[in-house]
């Protein structure tokens, strides 16, 4: 393709249309054909081809049906509308919608501009009140404009009233006696369908679109009635290459876009019928290889159907073409962007202003930047290819498309077959209980509510009243045939109870579900899928994030007071962190039985902290993955009477301190006596020191920060600021989210934003004026004493600042970064910096080098 483009771009476009878009369009047309016929014959619907895309869709469909020998689609008229026409046309039936559409379109424009756009074809009426002061105000005030009903508003409203009547007549005529309407269009969020459905609630509207996707703010009330024939999802996913259209919708939109004016008005003919005066010009659309090479390429494919005309053959051909299209859409080379270089899109309602799909890679105004142009581009990966050399563009394109580092490096293959055949239950859920029927009931329900059901639930009654347990199980709505009840007869302790339960059944995985904890319904489904999937080859267990639930046992039952993330900072499970303390609850931890067997299960000698000891020994054998969703709930009776219903963590706090020493000592002793793992002994020793060290560091920092005027004395206040932010973040939510460089970059950016008075940035940070910006900088740097809530930038702000890349924000290296050494070790980077494409070696290291595995060189 690359060579072809270099030789002759139009020919390349034709070939792209014929070889790649051809099969996917044919597959789409098959689905469309079936849908249309189904709606006509089974749903007795009126099918309408929505202009303007409908004009070319029909042309493609007719060619396709002829080539396949299918009976042609009949009795499905064109529907001459545009978003603006529908807004005008529903003025009488649903004014709020009509106004909302206009407001969105003319928010930043004057109402005069809006008026002119409304009368584009007819020209403003001669008696139009040009001097109405309202006309100088902005479209964002459009509600007040119409509410006040001044002279200009009256004229425009009268025009809408008139158009609305014509539209109602036009639509009623088209719809005939049908209650169901199917609209055929390219996509994507079905605005016209939504406006029509709101205006004609007595009819049922359906849409058959190429694809369906939306944004966070998209109105999705009619979503189920909008059929995306090829895809229905908001984001691109490598495993579904057809979803690449969400990154480059103009590839499809432009393909079906006929030449000719937009449809903005209706009129009455001499014969008295309603018609769209602009329709004729659009109907005259005659794409040729010279004007529309890609479309004619597609049409050539449709006429010939070289892969065969059957459903399966075309489905397979489309399946082969999509990965290639997706590769070009997500990771285009600079040459390949030329395939779409000719596309221009209207930037406004009336289609008077046209903007190119891709922007020339040069500054449009003072302060413009590649980053900004990519942001503004209608095809971001394409713009990235224009802005940066290939080796810099590709990582950026991968990030924009959400691609992994190896995606498309090998030929695309469908995802692995997700079928798991087991000879035993997937999971053994172990619940230890002792005379707490109220909690046990909740635990039973928590397990029964799981969306994954291949488990056996072992209830171990640890010496309590077995009849009470039995009755509780009987009276609870749960899957009784998945339950195995074990009576320990006498109390044997938590860890012994776990071992008894685990060894009583067979399973692939094990999880301890204590009687007072609970899960979100998706816990087992997500954790089992994780260990069943490719990650299962790396990890021996997985935790989900968990919530700390603060509750109290009252006469009325269990009362929940608060739910907060429990150790929300956990992103990975490090042995070193585990050596300091246990930081996840058993309820979050699903693991492989083979690891349990290998490490000999739980140590029954510990009344508390048995899980910590287990986790430590577990980590000597295998790694533990982390699911980011909080699916496990760790319940605590930390209010009211904590003794009676207490967790061992709350009620037995002293025991924890005592047994932390015992666990460390035993592991060490065992190792020294040759019966255990020597490295684990070293580890828990280091852990103890680390813990002490960390606490000491915190104390020192606190004291340092209490010293007034500290900031001025420091050689580099920005670095100090960065360090403080890091401390503050870690104090509040634990380590791990950002490193020192992130804070350095964020603080540098913030300082620059204040200096440059860059409102686009400051506003995002919630800073409303410059003195406040300076104040924020100062406060961030000052001691946290004296502020009731120590100021800190949110994680979002830091992320935003680190990702900020524009002119004026050249990135200086932090004092501890050896810029010279980095550049001399990386001559390719030095070249890029010399060309002025990057400001510093650090900038390269931070944005690219780190990901590429280059070494950060620090000063001593």
């Amino acid at each position, binding site marked *: 393709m690359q060579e072809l483009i270099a030789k002759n771009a139009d020919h390349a476009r034709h070939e792209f249309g014929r070889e790649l878009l051809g099969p996917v369009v044919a597959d789409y047309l098959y689905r469309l054909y079936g849908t249309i016929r*189904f709606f006509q014959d089974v749903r007795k619907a009126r099918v309408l081809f929505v202009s303007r895309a409908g004009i070319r869709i029909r042309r493609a469909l007719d060619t396709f049906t002829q080539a396949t020998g299918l009976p042609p689609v009949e009795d499905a008229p064109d529907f001459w509308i545009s978003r603006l026409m529908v807004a005008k046309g529903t003025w009488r039936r649903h004014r709020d919608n009509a106004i909302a559409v206009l407001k969105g379109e003319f928010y930043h424009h004057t109402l005069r501009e809006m008026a002119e756009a409304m009368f584009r074809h007819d020209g403003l009426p001669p008696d139009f009140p040009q001097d109405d002061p309202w006309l100088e105000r902005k479209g964002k005030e459009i509600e007040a404009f119409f509410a006040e009903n001044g002279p200009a508003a009256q004229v425009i409203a009268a025009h809408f009233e008139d158009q609305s009547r014509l539209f109602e007549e036009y639509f009623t005529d088209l719809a005939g006696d049908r209650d169901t309407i199917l609209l055929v269009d390219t996509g994507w969020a079905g605005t016209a369908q939504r406006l029509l459905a709101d205006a004609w609630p007595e009819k049922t509207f359906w849409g058959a679109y190429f694809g369906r996707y939306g944004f966070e703010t998209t109105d999705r009330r009619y979503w189920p009635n909008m059929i995306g024939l090829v895809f229905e999802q908001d984001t691109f996913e490598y495993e579904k290459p057809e979803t690449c259209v969400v990154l480059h919708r103009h590839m499809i939109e432009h393909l079906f876009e006929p030449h000719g004016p937009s449809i903005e008005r209706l009129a009455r003919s001499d014969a008295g019928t309603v018609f769209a005066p602009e329709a004729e010009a659009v109907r005259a659309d005659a794409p040729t290889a010279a004007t529309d090479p890609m479309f004619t390429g597609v049409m050539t494919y449709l006429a010939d159907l070289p892969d065969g005309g059957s459903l399966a053959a075309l489905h397979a051909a489309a399946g082969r073409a999509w990965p290639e299209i997706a590769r070009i859409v997500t990771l285009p080379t600079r040459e390949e962007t030329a395939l779409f270089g000719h596309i221009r899109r209207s930037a406004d309602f009336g289609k008077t202003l046209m903007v190119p799909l891709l922007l020339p890679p040069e500054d449009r105004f003072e302060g413009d930047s590649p980053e900004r142009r990519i942001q503004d581009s209608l095809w971001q990966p394409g713009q990235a290819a224009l802005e940066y050399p290939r080796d810099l563009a590709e990582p950026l394109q991968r990030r924009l498309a959400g691609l992994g580092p190896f995606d498309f490096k090998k030929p695309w293959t469908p995802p692995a077959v997700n*079928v798991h055949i087991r000879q035993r239950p997937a999971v053994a859920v172990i619940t230890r209980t002792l005379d707490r029927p109220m909690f046990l009931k909740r635990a039973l329900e928590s397990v029964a509510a799981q969306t994954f059901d291949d488990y056996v639930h072992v209830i171990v009654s640890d010496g309590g009243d077995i009849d009470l347990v039995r009755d509780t199980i009987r009276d609870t709505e749960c899957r009784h045939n998945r339950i195995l009840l074990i009576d*320990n007869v006498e109390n044997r302790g938590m860890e012994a109870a776990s071992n008894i339960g685990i060894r009583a059944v067979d399973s692939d995985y094990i999880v301890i579900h204590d009687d007072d904890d609970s899960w979100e319904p998706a816990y087992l489904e997500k954790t089992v899928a994780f260990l069943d999937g490719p990650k299962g080859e790396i990890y021996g267990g997985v935790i989900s994030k968990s919530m700390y639930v603060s509750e109290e046992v009252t006469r009325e039952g269990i009362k929940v007071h608060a739910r907060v993330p429990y150790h929300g900072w956990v992103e990975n499970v490090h042995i070193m962190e585990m050596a300091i303390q246990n930081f996840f609850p058993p309820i979050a931890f699903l693991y492989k039985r083979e690891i349990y067997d290998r490490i000999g299960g739980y140590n029954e000698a510990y009344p508390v902290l048995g899980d910590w000891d287990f986790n430590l020994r577990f980590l000597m054998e295998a790694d533990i993955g982390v699911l980011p969703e909080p699916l496990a709930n760790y319940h605590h009776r930390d209010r009211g009477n904590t003794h009676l219903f207490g967790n061992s963590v709350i009620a037995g706090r002293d025991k924890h301190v005592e047994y932390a020493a015992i666990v460390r000592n035993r592991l060490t002793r065992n190792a020294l006596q040759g019966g255990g793992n020597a490295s684990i002994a070293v580890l828990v020793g280091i852990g103890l020191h680390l813990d002490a060290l960390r606490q000491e560091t915190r104390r020192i920092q606190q004291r340092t920060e209490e010293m007034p005027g500290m900031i001025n004395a420091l050689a580099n206040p920005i670095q100090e600021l960065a360090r403080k932010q890091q401390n503050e973040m870690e104090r509040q939510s634990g380590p791990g989210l950002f490193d020192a460089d992130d804070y350095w970059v964020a603080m540098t950016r913030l300082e620059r934003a204040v200096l440059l008075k860059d409102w686009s940035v400051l506003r995002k940070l919630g800073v409303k004026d410059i003195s406040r910006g300076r104040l924020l900088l100062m406060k961030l740097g000052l001691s946290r004493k004296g502020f009731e809530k120590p100021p800190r930038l949110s994680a979002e702000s830091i992320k935003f600042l680190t990702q900020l890349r524009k002119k004026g924000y050249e990135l200086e290296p932090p004092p501890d970064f050896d810029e010279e050494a980095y550049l001399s070790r990386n001559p390719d980077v030095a070249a890029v910096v010399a060309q002025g494409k990057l400001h510093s070696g650090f900038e390269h290291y931070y944005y690219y080098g780190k990901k590429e595995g280059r070494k950060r060189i620090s000063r001593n």
Partner: protein
Amino acid sequence: MNHVIDKDYFKYKTVDDVNYTEINIASREIITNKHKSTKTSDIENRIIQYIRENDIKVLSFDVFDTYLLRNSKPEAARYMELSNIILKRLKDSLPHQERLSTLDPADICLARIAGMQATYRTRPRVEGCGEGEIREVIAMQCRLIGLPAQAEDILLEAEIAYEAENLSENTLLARLARRFRKEGGKVILVSDMYLGADIIAEIIHRVVKRPVHQHLFSSADMVVSKRSGKIFPAIERILGHAPREFLHIGDSWTGDVERPRKAGWHAMHFPIPRTELNKRKAALAEFIREMDEKGINTRAWAKL
């Protein structure tokens, strides 16, 4: 399992009779063996006892995978097999149709999937529930592959014949139903299915000489379903019985146990055994791989 599992814990015991409200009919193999072994008669007796204790007036069975037992093929593979049969029948009955010569069973199968998606998605909803219907599926199927209207009857007949050939009566439930009817009880069948009651009845007549049921309800006709829970009050109204007078038995935990219990019915689970599920899973994986070979990615719809 009233035995000691681990010698180190000689003092603990497992308690296996917590299944008070539910008879765990675990071994379908025993039933399909058609021997009236002690085990199945045990189960039968326990259900009868349960019926007497709870004064049950209406015994209700799920149809597919409960009253009628399927073989070990996953749904996706069944569609493909059926597509082969359809193509053969079409060629026999419509010898002059030129289109048929270029048709592959995969075309018929994909058209069926398109039809299933269309009917489930677009059929007008009742009380918030949606349900598909086989005649709509076939209508879409025939249009997509360009077959004349008379082909629709051929497809429907092939569907009925194929189902009948691959189903067998659950003799345990059949005996149970006859015993219950002798004692004056009513037996009904309730199915969540895209086949209407008329079609299911036709299938049953081909499988079973003397069907056990007096009434047959299908979500394909009623649109409200077991999995939505809304079919139960509708059936109560039609038959004039109170919720507590029903006992329903079926293989789907949600549709056949959870939902009817929520509606006030008695319900027992009749799960598909692991060995059976594994056979279907293996066949499904095989099916997906085979279709991959043809370049057709079936992951979005290929089910057990």
